[in-house]
């Protein structure tokens, strides 16, 4: 029998702990495939952040450091500056990157830090049980915005990629989603370009990936995918903001 699909060698055998219908798993696989295809496993150092993906160090078969909530870009900076030959990436949620760690994100981007960030935006705090994130949509219910997010009380959904797009240190920046085979394909291509930006020493690269949280959105997996397509992608348009080639 011909083997047509297998786990990329850069993923360990450990089964993902993600909820059914959560797209964190798909994104992990894409990152692993790109690390494999660009032959980066041996020199990669990944940074796991605080959020549902905190155990990323159990899944990626490469050197990993786990970082405090929001600080992954600073940890990545410390590694990359002292190990310039290595390949350094972070994997962060929207609470981690867009709220508590927005300072580290902006400054790493503004320094043109030669690191790559996988930014998983699911518009909610997954791990702590569905609180409002800076990316939560207007009207979207969460445990801490039970009546739905209101601009007056909670501010507006934070357009992280649009903000970063104003910074000259950014080499590659795109927003994608993984709700369909085409979206998965585009996302993989974006991750590859982001990683190539680092290999070519062009500076900071980030891919914002719209992702599902069926558990805290209280939607079934199919409806969660539709929520990304119909609601989130309206507020967070898919786009290549910056490219380098």
């Amino acid at each position, binding site marked *: 029998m011909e083997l047509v699909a297998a786990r990329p060698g850069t993923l360990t055998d450990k089964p993902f702990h993600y909820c059914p219908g959560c797209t964190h798993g798909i994104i992990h696989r894409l990152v692993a495939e790109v690390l494999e295809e660009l032959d980066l496993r041996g020199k990669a150092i990944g940074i796991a952040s605080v959020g549902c993906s905190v155990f990323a160090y159990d899944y990626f078969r490469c050197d990993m450091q786990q970082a*405090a909530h929001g600080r992954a870009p600073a940890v990545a900076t410390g590694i990359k500056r002292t190990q310039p030959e290595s390949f350094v990436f972070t994997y962060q949620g929207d609470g981690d990157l867009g709220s508590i760690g927005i300072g580290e994100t902006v400054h790493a981007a503004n320094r043109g830090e030669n690191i790559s960030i996988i930014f998983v935006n699911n518009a909610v705090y997954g791990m702590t049980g569905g609180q409002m994130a800076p990316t939560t949509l207007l009207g979207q219910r969460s445990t801490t915005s039970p009546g739905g997010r209101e601009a007056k009380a909670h501010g507006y959904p934070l357009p992280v990629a649009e903000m970063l797009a104003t910074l000259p240190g950014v080499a590659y920046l795109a927003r994608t989603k993984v709700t369909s085979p085409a979206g998965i394909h585009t996302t993989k291509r974006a991750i590859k370009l982001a990683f190539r930006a680092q290999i070519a020493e062009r500076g900071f690269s980030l891919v914002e990936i719209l992702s599902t949280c069926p558990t805290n959105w209280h939607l079934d997996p199919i409806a969660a995918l539709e929520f990304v397509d119909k609601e989130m992608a309206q507020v967070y348009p898919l786009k290549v903001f910056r490219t380098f080639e």
Partner: protein
Amino acid sequence: MTESMGLMKGNEAMAEAALRAGCRAYFGYPITPQNEIPDYMARRLPKRGGIFLQAESEVAAINMVYGAGGAGVRVMTSSSSPGISLMQEGLSYIACAEIPCVIINMVRSGPGLGGILPAQGDYFQATKGGGHGDYKLLVLAPSTVQEAVDITYEAFDLADKYRNPVMILGDGLLGQMMESVRLPKPVGYLEEKPWATTGCGYGEPRVINSLYIEGPIMEERIRRIFRKYAQMEQDEVRWEEYLTEDAELLVAAYGSTARIAKTAVARARDKGMAIGLFRPISLYPFPYGKLRELAGRLKGILTVEMSMGQMVEDIKLGVEGACPVSFYGRAGGMIPTPGEILTQIEAMWSRLP
């Protein structure tokens, strides 16, 4: 082998000692009274093949230290009290993940924004953990520029040996003071760190982590770092004694305050009082054992600090009630004078039975 450098300012001498100890990365954020350290590093570190980076905050700086230390290089940061407060979460991660690094705290007065004058109000924070959870920093407190140099140089070895952060607790006086120093020769070969995340090649991946969600595993982790602390308590306890042999009263003080106290003790001796000085150098591990031994034949201990009384609690713990302990402190950036301390000594002496 050392090299005489003539006069150097404490902050700059410590920075140079760090470079000679093989420090190859510095991350920090400006704050008085330690700015000469980053300034010196910015000028010299790149020339020696190292990395200097001014971080966007102390929070970012300590996490850069965590990354670089995790990747195996000798790394340090320096700051002063409010900045060190911001680093506490990172230090807790670093201690749990067992990453070697060196932190210099040139203490200023607090709480709050306080002032930029010297103080010793960060003793509790430095010696009792400081951040969340069960951990400790190895804390060393020099009292002269030469000692600051020697301690800084050795701090990197200690950090590597124990895979634990080492904090050097100074203050504005020590940092600004100019004294003649001898500097150690630059280190040569440094041992490999097989645990460091430098890219695993095609070998086994390494993980730097402080998350252990299962109680028994986390407890074992904590026990593991505490076995190191037990080792430190055996091997790294340091103190200085001055005229203690026949002393009936001791002054206990550390850092800059100890220097001032020494002058007061010498004056008291001139006046015929049998007074000595006990100066803890390692604040964690604290020299409880030596203190207990001395206390048995003393009539009292006067603890002097530039705070409202922090180390005095460790003095009392060490003394175990064997003799009375009294306290004299100045705070807010006010520095006790030898005369003030002498007055305290005389008062205590006159009350002796």
